[in-house]
């Protein structure tokens, strides 16, 4: 259960916040956006943080999910649920088709290819005006309803998206600790070595790419219903880069780090609005400064900092012991991820 304690903490925070701050703009309105961003960041982190495959085009899959739902419900009058499923299938097929050739590429070439993919999808959304509404966007998207419980207020959207975030984080944590999760981390370390161990690297990479795309598509569909309106701006390459920034700022290869990064990057611009003209400049400076001084991201950086602070204070309790020595699970997660982080630093 210790493995999931962070998840309970996250769920508790999601439940408690609206109780502590009822009708607060930052909780119910910005919080909903932050939740969606967190879902996207967690899915991208599976691909980037664990499998080590950089993607600068994740917004494309978010957009495909959103536009599938938007077009089918608003234009063709489908019920949202089959539209969601269709959107998932569509996004999944596209992701599967492009995954193999794209994931053969490495580092900067992979970054370029995913960036290009994102831009191509964006251009098609803008240009196919008869279908997507073009640059003006597409409105009149009905809201979701769960067996008659219509999600028609900010509070209700908060509940839905909060719950979805908890499910996605739980899913991500489980995948990372599963057999395929270990395969992912192995091929992150070295693809050749992973292949020598009998891992089908191409299939594993394709799998995680499609999974990340599917999660993004779900988020997109929910986003479309929540906003009741979609426009191409929400899915541009700027947003893809913002997602990558969330993952890296929070800390790669850490699911909670991705959530933290998403929260910070969603709330920061809201808070910086008070600086008016200086907003963009300060945002850039914060981003740069954080990455210079905490190159492994906030989550890992702050954890290390806490550890350092704690070390001299309580030297006797310092040894965390192999966590419950009687436990049948040797919890390989922590040391493995630490090693990975170190490898990152050197590379």
């Amino acid at each position, binding site marked *: 259960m210790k493995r999931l304690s962070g998840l309970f903490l996250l769920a508790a925070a999601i439940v408690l916040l609206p109780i502590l701050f009822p009708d607060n703009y930052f909780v119910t309105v910005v919080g909903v956006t932050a939740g969606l961003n967190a879902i996207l960041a967690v899915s991208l982190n599976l691909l980037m943080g664990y499998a080590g495959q950089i993607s600068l085009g994740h917004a494309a899959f978010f957009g495909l999910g959103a536009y599938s739902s938007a077009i089918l419900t608003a234009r063709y009058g489908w019920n949202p649920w089959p539209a969601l499923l269709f959107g998932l299938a569509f996004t999944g097929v596209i992701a599967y088709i492009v995954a193999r050739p794209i994931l053969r590429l490495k580092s900067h*070439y992979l970054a370029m290819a995913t960036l290009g993919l994102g831009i*191509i999808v964006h251009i098609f959304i803008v240009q196919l005006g008869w279908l997507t509404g073009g640059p003006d966007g597409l409105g009149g998207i009905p809201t979701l309803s769960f067996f008659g419980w219509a999600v028609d207020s900010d509070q209700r959207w908060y509940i839905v998206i909060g719950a979805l975030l908890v499910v996605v984080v739980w899913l991500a944590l489980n995948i990372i600790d599963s057999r395929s999760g270990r395969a992912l981390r192995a091929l992150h370390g070295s693809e*050749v*070595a992973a292949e020598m161990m009998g891992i089908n690297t191409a299939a594993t990479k394709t799998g995680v790419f499609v999974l990340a795309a599917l999660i993004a598509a779900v988020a997109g569909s929910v986003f479309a219903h929540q906003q009741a309106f979609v426009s191409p701006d929400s899915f541009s390459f700027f947003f893809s880069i913002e997602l990558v920034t969330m993952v890296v700022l929070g800390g790669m290869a850490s699911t909670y780090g991705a959530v933290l990064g998403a929260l910070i990057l969603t709330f920061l611009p809201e808070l910086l609005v008070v600086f008016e003209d200086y907003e963009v400049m300060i945002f850039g*400076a914060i981003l740069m400064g954080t990455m210079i001084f905490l190159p492994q991201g906030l989550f890992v950086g702050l954890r290390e900092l806490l550890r350092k602070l704690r070390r001299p204070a309580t030297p006797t309790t310092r040894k965390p012991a192999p966590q419950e020595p009687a436990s049948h699970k040797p919890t390989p997660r922590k040391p493995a991820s630490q090693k990975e982080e170190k490898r990152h630093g050197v590379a």
Partner: protein
Amino acid sequence: MFDQILQFLLTGITVGSTYALVGLGFAIIYNASDVVNFSQGEFVMIGGMSAVALSAGDAGLPLWAAAIGAVLITTLVGMALQRFAIAPARGASVVTTIIITIGASIFLRGVALLVWGKDLFALPPFSGNTPIQIGNATVLPQNLWVMGGGVALVLGTQYFFNRTTLGKAILACSCNKTAAHLVGINVGVMLLLAYGIAAAIGAMAGILVAPITFTSYDTGVMLGLKGFSAAILGGMGNPMGAVAGGLLLGLIESLSAGLISSGYKDAIGFIILLLVLFFRPSGLFGKASVERV
């Protein structure tokens, strides 16, 4: 039809020359420090904007002096970027340095927004605005300036890196920093120089195109993207490959805008780029990388 294609080719080469110069900057910095500098486009913007600012008004400098001033300003910005953002993060992972340069580009854009606002600015053309007839196609004198300037800068860079001691010293650092240090090369200064040179090339590109495309605080974004595409298309770390990639990209865009659809021109450019990468995963002129275990 033939005249039209000639016209598209001329436009394509002009646009391609800008992409090539931005790509060249990417390649120089990548070679010297293994960093993909996503603020390269911002150098172009700063070059164009400061040239406009220095030459504007009655008290403004003459164009040539404003251009020199703008290049100097941008060079200093490039060196400051290396000194204060890249150098302190030495040893960080590739993705971390990418985010640092993205942060730097947002920061520089923010500063430009603060100083110059959101307006579009233009420099006057260097030598008039009378179109020149080539066959049945026309070309503006400024287009020739861009092409000629591009060729001069590329040849100059080539000469600098292959024939001068200083250029060779920078190349030595990119091959092996420790070895370069051991033979007495000041690696820190060389890195600073490489960023300065990349920034200066970007600034010159920005000044050359400012009379044609105008310039504003956010022109750097798209140009940076295209320059990165050019560098990747040619093969990362190959300066001449980046130049070829830039020209090719400019031609593809101009031809597809003219012959197919201007709305899809960027998409066609990127689709061709993706296809090239599928068949040549290290770009057109890049060396295949081999993973060592």
